[in-house]
């Protein structure tokens, strides 16, 4: 469990004179659910995009699953899954076609895709709608399907960028059950979220403010340190925007 699957040292990302990520350093252990919290504009998305190889840091050292972010992006991309808040499913394709598409993009053999598709549809209870277009599915179903598709190729890490936006509490609960199940299989979960109750489900959380990581620990430890009853209180205490704005 102590093996670090993500290791970030002095990560800096600048856009012109604006510093979106200011000297970030943290590790994520194999198999843990790591919550990445921060107010809007704190620099979360920038950091996640860098970790996924979607953009390059200005300076600093980043290793994902043992691969270097500058030289081995190909290998990194093969070993990670990514699900954005917009689910990345094609609305005009059917459930089965979406599964086959992503299976194909990640280079899975056809036979394996078929097996995984059958198993996945069965598990989600979506076998009957496999030939329906995504556009006609309820949001909660799309979300579960998007997550299942993101881990179709058995990645070592899966990045979830605000995955529960816009779905109802029951669907969110079910979604977190899926996350737990996946994490118990050894997959590392890196999740950004706005919902503080979700942060409580994480093994460890980091809180970003103005481009810096201002706290990083287990939810229980943070609550103890900041003497707050919930992660939400912790968040309000430390992650509020600069005082000049208040």
């Amino acid at each position, binding site marked *: 469990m102590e093996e670090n699957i993500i290791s970030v040292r002095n990560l800096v990302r600048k856009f012109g004179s604006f510093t979106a990520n200011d000297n970030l350093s943290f590790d994520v252990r194999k198999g843990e659910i790591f919550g990445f919290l921060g107010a809007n504009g704190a620099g979360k998305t920038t950091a996640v995009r860098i970790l996924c*190889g979607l953009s390059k840091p200005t300076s600093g050292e980043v290793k994902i699953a043992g691969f270097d972010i500058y030289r081995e992006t190909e290998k990194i991309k*093969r070993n990670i899954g990514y699900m954005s808040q917009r689910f990345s*499913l*094609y609305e*005009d394709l059917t459930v089965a076609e979406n599964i086959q598409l992503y299976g*194909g*993009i990640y*280079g899975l053999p056809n036979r394996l895709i078929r097996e995984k598709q059958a198993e996945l549809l069965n598990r989600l209870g979506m076998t009957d709608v496999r030939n329906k277009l995504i556009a006609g599915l309820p949001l909660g179903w799309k979300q579960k399907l998007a997550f299942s598709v993101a881990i179709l190729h058995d990645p070592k890490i899966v990045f979830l960028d605000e995955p529960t936006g816009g779905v109802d509490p029951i669907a969110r609960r079910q979604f977190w059950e899926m996350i737990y199940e996946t994490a118990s299989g050894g997959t590392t979960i890196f999740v950004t979220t706005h919902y503080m109750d979700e942060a409580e489900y994480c093994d460890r959380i980091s809180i970003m403010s103005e481009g810096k990581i201002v706290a990083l620990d287990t939810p229980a430890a943070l609550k103890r340190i900041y003497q707050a009853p919930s992660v939400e209180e912790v968040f309000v205490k430390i992650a509020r925007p600069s005082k000049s704005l208040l």
Partner: protein
Amino acid sequence: MKRFIGFVKKEFLHIFRDYLTMIILFGIPAVLVLLFGFVISTELKDARVAFLDLSNDGTTHRISEKICSSGFFKRGASLDSFDDIESALRSGKARAVVVFGNDFERNLIREGRATLSVITDGSEPNVATQTTTFISAIVAGFNADLAGSDSPGTLLVQPEVRMFYNPLMKSQFMFVPGLITMIMIMICALMTSITLTREKEFGTMEALLASPLKPVQIILGKVVPYFFLSLIDAILILLLSWWVFGLTVKGSLILLLAEVMLYILMSLSLGILISSKAKNMQQAIFGTLVGGMLPTVLLSGFIVPIDSMPEIYQWISAVLPPRYFVVILKNIMIKGTGFLFIWKETLILLLFTTGFIALSLRSFKTRLQ
């Protein structure tokens, strides 16, 4: 490679599933060809004919009456002098002018022959030819009547085609090259820029970029289907023009298809460039219409000949790739010339293509960093 094929397959699914795309791809080109074709080669009916009658005698009246009651022509203005002919044709008030010279009847009786002129507008070659033929036929009928009468004589028709707007006799199929040029840039540039920005807008582009697919593969995968569909479209237009209007390509078909492919590549890279700059689909559509469609229609020499444009438009036209493709097509299809006559235009298209690709690669890279 297998990843890539799966990705291309998905793009075809997008296209075939969206009936709007299918209409743009295959419906519009077919309709445009038929529309342009039929508008241009429409049958002559009730075309207005003006008369310049310098004799104003019984015979000229009978002839003009016969022409106007034929069902093909309607009586237009009566002109007073030769100076009025041009303005009558230019203004469109008359499709043709029939001129009877002085002493028409007297010449017919004394010398047994008289000549009438038919002046037509060469900027509408089809109408011009048909008008002349029909009037000649009507006059031939009149000749037959004369032969049976007590004052036999022969009327001669002297057709005269005046070229307005169009000093070089245009072929009636001039619209086909222009149409191919317009449709290709519409499909290639518009559709690729839309399909690429759509991925951006729906957030699926991020998922693709986070996957092991290389950016180049993503762009190629999105573009390859349109390459083939556009090629099919070009062939469809050529076949339609052949079946319906009897247009045959005078030059080499292989050379023609090769040039079409080059032009498709050029349009695709323009579409990629536009999508790499555009933030959303509206911008992409607007960019393609303003940057591709409008200049093609207005300035490529498709509707207005480049020589008769104001000089500033001629300069603008010089930096528009479609203009060169129209030249290439006209050369191959209508004049039947070979590669030697169009290598310059081909080279220019090639330069545009590489330029567009280089620019979009650069903007793609800066966006990733």
